């Protein structure tokens, strides 16, 4: 079998990450529906190509921020899925010691500044991080992942103006999956939407098929190169779809079965499409299957580890809050 091209090798490793995200999210969903994981879980299934294609172009020192649907972004940036699964299970050695949970996963060791339970706030915080990069004269970029529902929040619009006037190394990634919870974003979004708005602030970027991993990767590479060269902020507008309901408490009834089938079909699903491309490049079915089973095994071990791990001591509830002034 012929040696793989560099690109194929790169795509193969990106597929590995996509598979891990998919398995993680399916397992997290099962654990949530099954009552093992408390609260609700917002699954990223169907959008994996965006997190992976973008983060493949980032360094550990670069920053990302995320929203309520943040597992994929964290894994793509390099967070440990086992520690993350432990966090979902509320365990002591979870990513955030069980204090955060699904919607509040952060890993500062790899520049993941946090998922966020408040729509758009992750983006404004990332812009602040980009400003710190400027103050400290560092060679880094900051990236914010947010959805098409977030674009109607004022703070996000303030963020676009802000990033441009200070010419910050900031990449805005809008994941357009068509919905904000149960609402069709088309019904509550005026004019040309995110792209027209970003451009009205003088911010340039690219529109891509968010389920096309190679397109996301290539576009991000171009934009990030411009950011690193001091070209100021950029945007990536990626069209996609979430395969599952808004979260594990949502029925998803507002979507037609037809729409779901269209988007989950092999010609739309980002993983199936990546696999097809790789096979065409001469990657063997066996290798693909291996990646799948590795991902499955990894996540199964993560779930097992999460189940087995100890819960935090109650006293931990009173640590890591303001040093001066006792919490009780």
């Amino acid at each position, binding site marked *: 079998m012929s040696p793989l091209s560099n690109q194929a090798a790169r795509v193969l490793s990106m597929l590995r990450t996509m598979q891990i995200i998919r398995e993680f999210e399916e397992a997290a969903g099962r654990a949530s529906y099954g009552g093992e*994981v*408390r*609260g609700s879980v917002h699954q990223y299934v169907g959008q994996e190509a965006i997190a992976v294609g973008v983060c493949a172009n980032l360094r550990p020192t670069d920053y990302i921020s995320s929203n309520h649907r943040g597992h994929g972004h964290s894994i793509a940036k390099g967070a440990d899925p086992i520690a993350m699964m432990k966090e979902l299970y*509320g*365990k002591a050695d*979870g990513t*955030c*010691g*069980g*204090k*955060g*949970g699904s*919607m*509040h996963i952060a890993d500062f060791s790899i520049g993941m500044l946090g998922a*966020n*339970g*408040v*729509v*758009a706030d992750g983006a404004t915080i990332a812009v602040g991080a980009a400003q710190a990069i400027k103050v400290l004269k560092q060679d880094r970029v900051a990236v914010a992942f947010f959805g098409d*529902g*977030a674009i*109607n*929040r*004022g*703070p996000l619009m303030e963020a676009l103006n802000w990033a441009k006037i200070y010419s910050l190394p900031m990449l805005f990634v809008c994941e357009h999956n068509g919905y*904000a*919870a*149960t*609402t069709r974003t088309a*019904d*509550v*979004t005026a004019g040309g939407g995110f792209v027209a708005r970003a451009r009205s602030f003088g911010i340039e970027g690219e529109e891509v098929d968010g389920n096309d991993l190679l397109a996301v990767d290539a576009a991000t590479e171009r934009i990030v190169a411009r950011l690193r060269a001091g070209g100021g902020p950029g945007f990536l507008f990626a069209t996609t779809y979430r395969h599952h309901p808004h979260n594990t408490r*949502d*029925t998803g*009834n*507002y979507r037609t079965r037809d729409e779901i089938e269209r988007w989950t079909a092999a010609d739309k699903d980002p993983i199936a499409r990546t696999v097809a491309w790789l096979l065409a490049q001469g990657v063997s079915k066996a290798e693909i299957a291996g990646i799948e089973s590795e991902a499955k095994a990894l996540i199964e071990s993560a779930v097992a580890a999460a189940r087995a791990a100890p*819960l*935090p*001591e*109650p*006293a*931990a*509830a*009173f640590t890591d*809050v*303001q040093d001066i*002034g*006792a*919490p*009780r």
Partner: protein
Amino acid sequence: MTMELTYAEAARLALDQEMERDPRVWALGEDLGPEGGLAGQYKGLQAKFGPDRIVDTPISESMIMAAGVGAAVAGTRPVVELRFADFAMCAADETVNQAAKIRYMFNGQARVPLVARQAVGMRGGTAAQHSQSTEAWWVHIPGLVVAMPATPRDNHGLLRAAIRCDDPVIYLEHKALWNIKGPVDPDAEPVALGKADRVTRGDDLTLVTWSGMRLECAKAAEALAKQGIGVELIDLRTLWPWDRDMVLDSVARTGRLLIAQEAVKIGGFGAEIAAEAAEALWDKLRAPIRRLGAPRTPVPFSLPLEDACRVTPEQIVSTATEMVASRS
């Protein structure tokens, strides 16, 4: 004719009745239409009253609240759905600087008859950004009425009273109560704002509470009764104005006041009650006034941590027992 309804169904019925009664009443917020709100508290109302009176909005909290304010001074009676109290902070300026002040600043030329609904409290794993109890903020703000129903009956009665009130009402439903059932009389008069509910009578100790904590207090009162301690349990229902007379009359009789709240104890509304009672009844007290509330920490995700931040019936019982034991 009384029926059994959930807390959410009771609120839905109240809004339905008020919208039938008064064409100026309408509601706006995220996801009210298709799914009828997070807990079905708007279920079917858009189909019945149309999209101009049950308005699905973008994720624009500032504008959601401001639309309510502007529409209220322009002759309508909006019910502003802000989803969670945590997100209502995104509209704190519109609430405090506009809704609460317009009538006064403009010397009574305009009234602001709006209801700002924002669910409070912990619901089991909802974590730091979806669990806060913010009533103390709103009580401190001149011009705002603050209501917190704890039963289906009161959610039906108070919501109708709030909609008929000509001043802005901050209406705080507890998200852990959405599905609890209780008797509701559709034809009952609205519950008067400012009138508390005496849940149990007793001569040994006055236990004051509100919102979700009413359930924990009722359990504690029962346990204490078994120990021969007579608890007068008062559910305030409205925090501003609060039923000072009922509380102080009761404490004058029992000589003991215990306040239990889910919110952070420091700077919570319990402090106001304690300060008032301490001043008015200082020489009638048979034990120090005690307060129970959350520690000054964000709400953690993991169960043992979350439990460490909850006020439990056991804590209420032990505190009450101490109070009755001490210096009687």
